[in-house]
């Protein structure tokens, strides 16, 4: 599903943020990417969700070699990925409902067919009563849940979440994690970056640890 080979990354002329990163994520796997703040977790995820090109190395995504693939294929690849951004990136002129509906609109689904999906997912993340609220009127934790709902609503093949439980209490954190596991059970490959090692104790998952731009622990299945 995902393969990194000797991937290096630097922003412009800056220092190398990622160095010789190589790993494979199997389809259907559930992986935590851990590491201290500033280790390069967000940068690695950006390469994966096609926000930045790597400075060197090979990335294969859904069987497509990104270096040689035509750019015209990228929108279709991106639509197969759900992303929970560290800073949420919700559109404030749209309601929570419309924010969550956005990926479905992009894939051309008619609103009659997705209204129920959107309402269901918003109810699951505990926002059933706030569907028409503007993101700016929601708390940080509520915004994070809208962002998560938006990432999962289209049942992506790959879900990437950057510190998705950073703004919620541990009860809600566990609840959201259950949502990710549920999605994984339905076939989505999941990759979650977190510096909260307490989070990763739950469920069947593997851990990949990044320190100072290098992978120090390869994905290994935990019991």
């Amino acid at each position, binding site marked *: 599903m995902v393969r990194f080979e000797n991937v290096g990354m630097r922003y412009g002329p800056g220092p190398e943020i990622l160095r010789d990163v190589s790993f494979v994520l199997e389809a259907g796997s559930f992986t935590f990417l851990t590491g201290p703040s500033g280790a390069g977790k967000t940068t690695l995820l950006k390469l994966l*969700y*096609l*926000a*930045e*090109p790597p400075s060197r190395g090979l990335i294969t995504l859904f069987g497509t070699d990104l270096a040689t693939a035509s750019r015209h294929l*990228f*929108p*279709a*690849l*991106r*639509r*197969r*990925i759900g*992303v929970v951004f560290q800073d949420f*990136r919700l*559109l*404030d*002129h*749209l309601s929570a409902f*419309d924010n969550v*509906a*956005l*990926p479905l*609109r*992009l*894939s051309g689904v*008619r*609103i*009659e067919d997705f*209204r129920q999906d959107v309402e269901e997912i918003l109810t699951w993340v505990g926002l059933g009563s706030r569907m028409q609220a503007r993101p700016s009127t929601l708390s940080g934790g509520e915004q994070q849940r809208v962002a998560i709902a938006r990432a999962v609503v289209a049942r992506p093949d790959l879900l990437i979440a950057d510190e998705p439980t950073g703004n919620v209490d541990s009860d809600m954190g566990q609840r959201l994690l259950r949502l990710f596991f549920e999605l994984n059970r339905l076939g989505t490959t999941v990759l979650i970056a977190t510096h909260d090692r307490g989070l990763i104790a739950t469920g069947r998952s593997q851990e990949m640890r990044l320190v100072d731009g290098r992978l120090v622990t390869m994905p290994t299945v935990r019991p």
Partner: protein
Amino acid sequence: MRLVLRAQRKSVLPREAGAAPLDIVIAIMAFLAALSLCAVLIAQRTAQDWRRGLAGKLTVQVLPPAQGPTQPALARETRAAVRVLETTPGIFSAHELSEAKTERLVEPWLGKGALVADLPLPRLVDASVVPGMRVDLAALRRRLKKVAPDGYVDDHRHWLARLSRLADTIMWSAYGVLGLIAIATTATAAFATRAGLAAHHDIVELLHQMGAHGSFIASAFDRHYLRTAFSASLVGALLAVILFIVAGGLEYVGLKPMAHLPPLALGMGQLAWLALIPLAGGAIAWATARLSVFAALRNIY
């Protein structure tokens, strides 16, 4: 159901609050474009009127003879000229302009009264040409020379050519102004879309990240600018239409709003051309917005 449809159509862009300057600039551009277009229409119509008015006319001018008694010679030569004209193929009527009429013609230059009465004024003979017929001027001049040696034929061609050139100059200048306005509008729209893109860069980037095609993102923008430019240029063009309708109305009741100008009244058929302006304004903004979005997206991975 209606609510559902509205949700479907809801733009991914917020409504612009600070777009007023663009609206105003485009409305002014449209107003100026409408004026230029009207100038084209008026020049075209005036040139046509002149041509129609003069093309069917011939004038023979009989000058006072250099020597001998003036009035008898003038009267004799003028009568002879009328007869020659009447028997010329292609001319269906010829008549002498009355002395009073001739005096009125020279009044702006010479004034009236005793002085003029004593002056030997040339006599004028007006002839109407059968529409579509060409008169053999050389033959006419030869015949005239024999019976009225002081008669000169003027077929106004020289005036017509000058007036046509004038009308053409006005028209091409107006087209030039229209072109400049189109360029300025394009530049303004490009500037505005680029500013709009910068203001909504986060949205563009997010949609791009979610896998939206360039055309989806572009259509959100181009539709917005199409609407803005269309309504703003509609306002500008409507102002011009009102202006010309008012001018036409004043002329109708006998007031001439602007001296030295041909009639400003335009028919509804001519004013209909102004409908092109909002269409062009909208199209320019639409295309510019689209191109700006695609240019911006090329800079994102």
